[in-house]
């Protein structure tokens, strides 16, 4: 007991450590999950994490739903970047059904996915700022999440849980107003992000606070199943977009930023750099979208009548369209039997969908590989021996999203 920092008077029957419940509804957890900490003074001896407070049985629900009704469930996994989840689910379905997408749809999807990656990372990084005592960075960036949400709104009509796109493309073409807002975003966001970086990156207080806080080695991170920015901060350049390109990511140029120590500071830097990469990806994809001419410039979905809802005016006038409309809406389309694993690079890492179909109308089994759930188990190891206040920023810099933890 020589490494104890607080000693009790002789003969005391009190235990030497303090138990502290961080969560389930503590403001510092940014979500509903609990950490039971054993504290010696302010130092953490042991952390035990409990999850499951917002478990909603998505995997069970999905077994009774036709494919298109599962999209709203995926919204609610990582709700900071729901379009990526939606797209990941559509890509999985398209892989199973063998739907080939036109290039324009791929690029439009990249625009939406990268926008949501930005909105995910900007929240995470500015919250790291808030938790370490610097509130202003949050206010600088938050208005741009609003702008991103307005773009979603133009595209699909909703903001947070988007249910964006359909199997085979988008439900409607992007409006001019959506592109205008996108241009506005591309023109103003880089300036603001630069300012945000100027506030934080070489800020002495922020550096002192985050360097060496919650570090993890590359080997441990891989063993713990880390993916995404948290793994890259530890120095492994694994990115699903580059390793298993989906949605025409291989047509575009981007770099994968990596860190070295895997601490909060490196995670912060990696996320910032990823935002710059995302901006460049959006610019490239937008340029490619603009290059389409004539009829090609109007394409926003694949030609797969069995899975993509026909246009409403065709439903009223054409028999086939009416039949397909009815079959899709009532969920009476049989899914081909098969077994498919498909993953996309979500905001927090590899978001995988393992779908087994037995030839019925609903999946036989669907499993979500939720990056958050898998890397959260490293949290006790990350914070052990550190200060209580370090645990709070470690938690926010891991970007733990309760929706993704529990599914």
């Amino acid at each position, binding site marked *: 007991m020589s490494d104890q920092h607080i000693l009790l008077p002789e003969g005391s029957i009190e235990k030497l450590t303090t138990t502290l419940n961080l969560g389930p509804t503590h403001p510092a957890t940014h979500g509903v999950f609990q950490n039971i900490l054993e504290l010696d003074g302010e130092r953490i001896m042991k952390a035990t994490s409990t999850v499951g407070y917002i478990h909603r049985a998505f995997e069970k629900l999905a077994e009774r739903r036709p494919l298109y009704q599962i999209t709203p469930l995926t919204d609610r996994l990582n709700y900071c970047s729901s379009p990526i989840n939606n797209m990941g689910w559509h890509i999985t379905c398209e892989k199973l059904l063998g739907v080939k997408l036109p290039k324009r749809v791929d690029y439009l999807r990249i625009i939406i996915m990268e926008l949501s990656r930005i909105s995910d990372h900007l929240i995470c990084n500015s919250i790291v700022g808030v938790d370490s005592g610097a509130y202003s960075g949050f206010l600088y960036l938050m208005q741009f999440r609003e702008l991103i949400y307005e773009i979603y709104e133009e595209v699909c009509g909703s903001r947070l849980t988007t249910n964006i796109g359909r199997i085979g493309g988008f439900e409607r073409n992007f409006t001019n107003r959506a592109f205008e807002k996108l241009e506005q975003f591309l023109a103003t966001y880089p300036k603001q992000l630069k300012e945000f970086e100027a506030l934080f990156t070489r800020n002495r207080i922020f550096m002192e606070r985050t360097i060496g806080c919650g570090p993890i080695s590359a080997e441990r991170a891989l063993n713990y*199943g880390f993916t995404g920015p948290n793994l890259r901060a530890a120095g492994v350049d694994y990115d699903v977009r580059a390793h298993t390109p989906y949605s025409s990511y291989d047509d575009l140029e981007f770099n994968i930023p990596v860190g070295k120590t895997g601490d909060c500071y490196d995670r912060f830097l990696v996320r910032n750099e990823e935002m710059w990469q995302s901006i460049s990806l959006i610019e490239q994809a937008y340029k490619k979208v603009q290059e389409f001419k004539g009829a090609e410039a109007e394409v926003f979905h694949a030609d797969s009548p069995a899975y993509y809802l026909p246009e409403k005016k065709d439903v009223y006038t054409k028999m086939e369209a009416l039949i397909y409309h009815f079959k899709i809406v009532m969920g009476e389309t049989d899914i081909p039997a098969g077994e498919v694993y498909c993953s996309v690079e979500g905001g927090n890492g590899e978001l995988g969908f393992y779908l087994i179909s037995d030839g019925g109308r609903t999946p036989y089994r669907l499993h979500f590989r939720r990056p958050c759930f898998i890397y959260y188990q490293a949290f006790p190891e990350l914070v052990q021996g550190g200060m209580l206040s370090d645990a709070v920023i470690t938690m926010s810099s891991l970007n733990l999203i309760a929706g993704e933890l529990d599914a």
Partner: protein
Amino acid sequence: MALTNELIKQRLTEKFGEQLIDWVEPYGMLTFTAPKDFNLKVLQFLFDEEELRFRFLTDLQAVHYPDNIGEELAVVYHLHNIVDNIRIRFKVFTDINQPDIFSATALYQAANFMERETFDFFGINFLGHPNLIRILNVDEMDYFPMRKEFPLEDQTRIDKDDEMFGRELVFREQNKIKATLEADTKLN
């Protein structure tokens, strides 16, 4: 030589012979089935072998096949070789009455929560797991909800021969209310 599915299959057959069965490649991912006592040996071999290097556990979950008597539960491992960028999947089947499977936690820390989740929903008993308790459901739960014997209400309505499109229960409830109302009027 780049690592290919054929090469992986060859290496595994050299090591385990006829023990590994059901080789298929759905959508390009090599898939096979191992006997349930062999799961750790296969994982260890795939991990250690310098040529194979499957050192990243992507995913671990179970599937319930109630009609597959004696082999009702399948545990599915998704492994990834990040260096050569190749994925494989392998399955282990077990009896539902004695669902004991060796835990992979010693090899992969990542397996800890995933195995707890699998235990929570399918009741697979991972031998050697350090802390095999429920993770997402309440501790008091005494059944395993993802098993197929707990069906959800059928929303796809293939059961249309039921009274009122399969909404028998609502119909019965309405009848009950009607009967009570009639009884009330009689009393009055």
